[in-house]
Every structure is written in C-alpha cells, then in structure tokens.
C-alpha cells in the first residue's frame, strides 16, 4: 500500500503504534531475559538516535542579532546496513546444549534462527520486522537571534495510539556563531541539542549531540558541512513471562551512533526553505526539511 503527501505523514504515524506497540515489542522481547534483548533492539535505538540528532539546522550561518523564526518539518530516513540486520545471541532457558548463533535483530528477517539440540529439542529465536529504513517526521522550530545564538525546539505529544499509550518527543538545543569572533570567509557555528523520546511505559530514549557546522550562504542558496559527537541511550521495560514467574525486565541500551559527518544545502525562496543533508556515521541518514520563516 502506498500513500501520497499529506497522507504519508499520517500513515507513518498510524503505523507507528503497530510495530512499536507494547504488545508487539513485548512479544518480540518475551523470548529474551538478558543480554540478548539488548543486542536485539539496539539497531532500532541507534536509528532513532541518529535520526533525531539530524535536521537541527539548515545552514551554518547564525546572524549576530535580529528576528529569525522558522517552522520546519523534517523528514528523516535512517538506512539500515547489512551488519545491523544480524547479531550473535545465546540460547537461554532449558535448551541443551547452550549455543551461540547469528540471528536477526529487530529490523532483520522475519524468521529467526532455529536450533536443534539434544534429543530433537528446538530453540527458536524471534524474527525481525524486516526494515530497510526507519522513516521519521519531526517538527522543528528555530528562534533567534541574540548575540549570535539561536534556539532550536522540537515537541510532539499524542495519546492517539491506544495500543502504546503516550508518544512524546521533546527536543531543545541551541546554535552559536563562532565566525563572529574570527575573520573568516566561511560561517562557522557550534550547536548542542538534547532530546527525550518516549513511547508509553516501554521505551524512553535520551539523546545528546554536539555539532560543528561550516558553510557559506549565497542569496538563495546555503551550503554546509559539519561533524558531530552524539549519544543515544534507551531504557526498555517489559514483562518477561517465558520460563518463570512473570517479572519486569529493564534494559539500558546504548546506541552505536557516536560520530557523524554531514554535507547539505538549503534553498531559499522568499519565506520558504528547503534543505537536504546527508549524514554519514554508524548510521546513514538522509534528512529533508521544508520550512517557513524569516
């Protein structure tokens, strides 16, 4: 099934609850009580983190002062690599003999590894969602400028998805012009942002990023490039019911996104701004933003 804009934004949001619902995630994780679960969900954590740490700006320049306000919608797609589709997991429970095997992560093939053990006992690992990419649509507001500094904010909250409870995104950050202190033909700025992203009671993701951007602005075109350091940590909470009395499992999963390089451009047409950047790090991200503002 395909949708065209503007229905696609709705479609992405509407299929969010299906694969991120507590029931769905718990079913997938129910197989795992420990380290296996962290390896299983890690690609999704990394993809969320890498995506949300993208699209925080659309040019390098930050004016020293003057009114600047921009409302932007960012569409991001995190492309999963082949190595993210599998990981090494261990058998748990009463399966004999204990073994390690390469099996799909949560974004891998729908059929997990199947092991045959002593006497014909069988251990089945869960399959994945078979995702090639993770798309996200995020609203972004930029306000400034005071002393060469602009503020960046993101907010989204809804209870519309009954299966998963509240979905909430909060992001705050700033970007400060460094080129105002030095004589440089290029615009240079340094930005920082912090995000929290929550899905019901099951998933809380906290992200930070520090990014240096260098670029040049022309009348209708801005070009920019940069690099950054970032972190992504998620708490995943679910009920483990597989082999013993039900108990709550709480995992702390670190995303593998650490460093990124990016290159992009922005097109200005009156009050409309259209930008695209390509981010290369552990996760590759394409970010496209469409904004209205001064």
């Amino acid at each position, binding site marked *: *099934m395909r949708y065209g804009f503007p229905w696609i934004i709705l479609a992405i949001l509407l299929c969010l609850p299906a694969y991120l619902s507590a029931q769905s995630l718990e079913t997938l994780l129910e197989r795992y009580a420990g380290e296996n679960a962290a390896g299983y969900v890690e690609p999704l954590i990394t993809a969320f983190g890498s995506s949300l740490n993208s699209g925080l700006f659309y040019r390098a320049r930050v004016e020293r002062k003057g009114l600047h306000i921009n409302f932007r919608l960012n569409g991001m*797609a995190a492309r999963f690599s082949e190595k993210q589709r599998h990981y090494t997991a261990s058998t748990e429970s009463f399966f004999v003999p204990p073994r390690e095997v390469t099996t799909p992560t949560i974004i891998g093939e*729908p059929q997990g590894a199947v092991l045959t053990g002593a006497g*014909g006992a069988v251990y089945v690992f869960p399959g994945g969602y078979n995702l090639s990419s993770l798309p996200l649509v995020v609203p972004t507001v930029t306000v400034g400028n005071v002393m060469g500094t602009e503020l960046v904010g993101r907010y989204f909250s809804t209870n519309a998805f009954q299966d998963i409870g509240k979905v909430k995104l909060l992001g705050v950050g700033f970007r400060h012009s460094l080129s105002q202190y030095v004589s440089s033909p290029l615009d240079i700025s340094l930005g920082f942002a912090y995000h929290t992203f929550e899905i019901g009671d099951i998933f809380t993701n906290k992200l930070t990023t520090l990014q240096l951007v260098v670029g040049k602005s022309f009348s209708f075109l801005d070009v920019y490039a940069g690099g950054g350091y970032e972190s992504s940590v998620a708490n995943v909470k679910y009920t483990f019911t597989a082999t013993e009395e039900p108990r709550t499992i709480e995992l702390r999963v670190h995303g593998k996104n650490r460093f990124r390089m990016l290159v992009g451009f922005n097109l200005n047409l009156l009050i409309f701004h259209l930008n695209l950047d390509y981010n290369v790090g552990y996760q590759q991200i394409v*970010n496209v933003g469409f904004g209205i503002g001064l």
Partner: protein
Amino acid sequence: MKHFAWLFWMVIFFAACEEVEVLQPVPITYKLIFDIHLSPDERSFDETVIFSSSEILSAIEDHLGEQFSMEDIQTIHVEGLAYTLLETDLSLSVVNGFFQAAYGNDSLKTLIELKDVVLGEILEERQVMELQEEGVMLLKEALTDILNHNARGDILIHARGETFQPLRRMKILLEITLTPVVKQTIEVPRVL
C-alpha cells in the same frame, strides 16, 4: 524549485506502511510436581502425573493473550526440560531412574535419564537435562494433536526409578518448556 522539491518528498512520499509476517516464539513453561512416597521395604518408585491436554490448551490460549489466537500458531516445539528436587528425607540416597512420557496407545518413552544422582547434591538446585529423542517425538506428536483438537487423551508423565537406601520421600518439580511459534502480521514503515 521544482527540481529540488522532490528531494523533500523523497523521504516521505515513497514511504508507506506495509505488512510483514513475523514468526515469533512464545515459550511457555509447565510445572509438574511429583510427590513420591516409598514404604520402608520399597526400593523402587513409579509416580505418574497427568499432563492434561485441556490444561495445556487453555494455558497456551491464556499465554497468547488477546494479541494472538490459536490459529496463529504455526508449529510447536519442545525446547527443554529441567527438574528440581524440592524435598527429601534422606540426602545420602543415590537414585537411578527416568522421567518418561506416555500418550495414547504408545508405550512409555524416556524424556530424561537420571544416573547415580546423590539427592543431597542436587537438593533445591535446578537440573537442566539433555532430552532423549523418543520422548521428545512423543511429546511433539501429542502437542500437535492437542493443537489440532485431536488429542488421544492426556499425556502421562512418569517418574520411575530405584534407590538402594531406605528412602521414604522425594518431592520433585519438573519444568517443561514448550515453544509455540506464532505468525504475527504487523504494519511497518517502508521507504523505497
């Protein structure tokens, strides 16, 4: 502008929700208690516990919850088995024996074998055991019949064995993990 506009839509225009069928194991563990009593002159035991077909079925239904139905089960596997000696009156006793299964008109098939087990060494310690093929095959056959609502009675699990000491009582917990594999159809985002 027109040439660049498609770049914005590239990410979201070609995205959509698509259905994917994911195979998920939903393991469930059953607990059976064997309370074995021997008279002073007895040196062998044979305690039987009924592994009820209807209870297996209802337990699986409960475990699947509202998200799945029995029709979603693609197959069911025997994953493993463990036993725990909960109580004994003579820790020095050495036991040899079997846990065996019977179903329909089939003869007893061995699930696990116990060799020279010193009760005091395993008291309250879960023992994860290698399964034997004949027992696993019988359980698998019975479980398939149960899921097809075609069960030929209940599964009987026997704890059989002998000891050379004057053992009077043993209480054993047997845990059997079965793994129904369900097909989960779910919508996921897709970007071309």
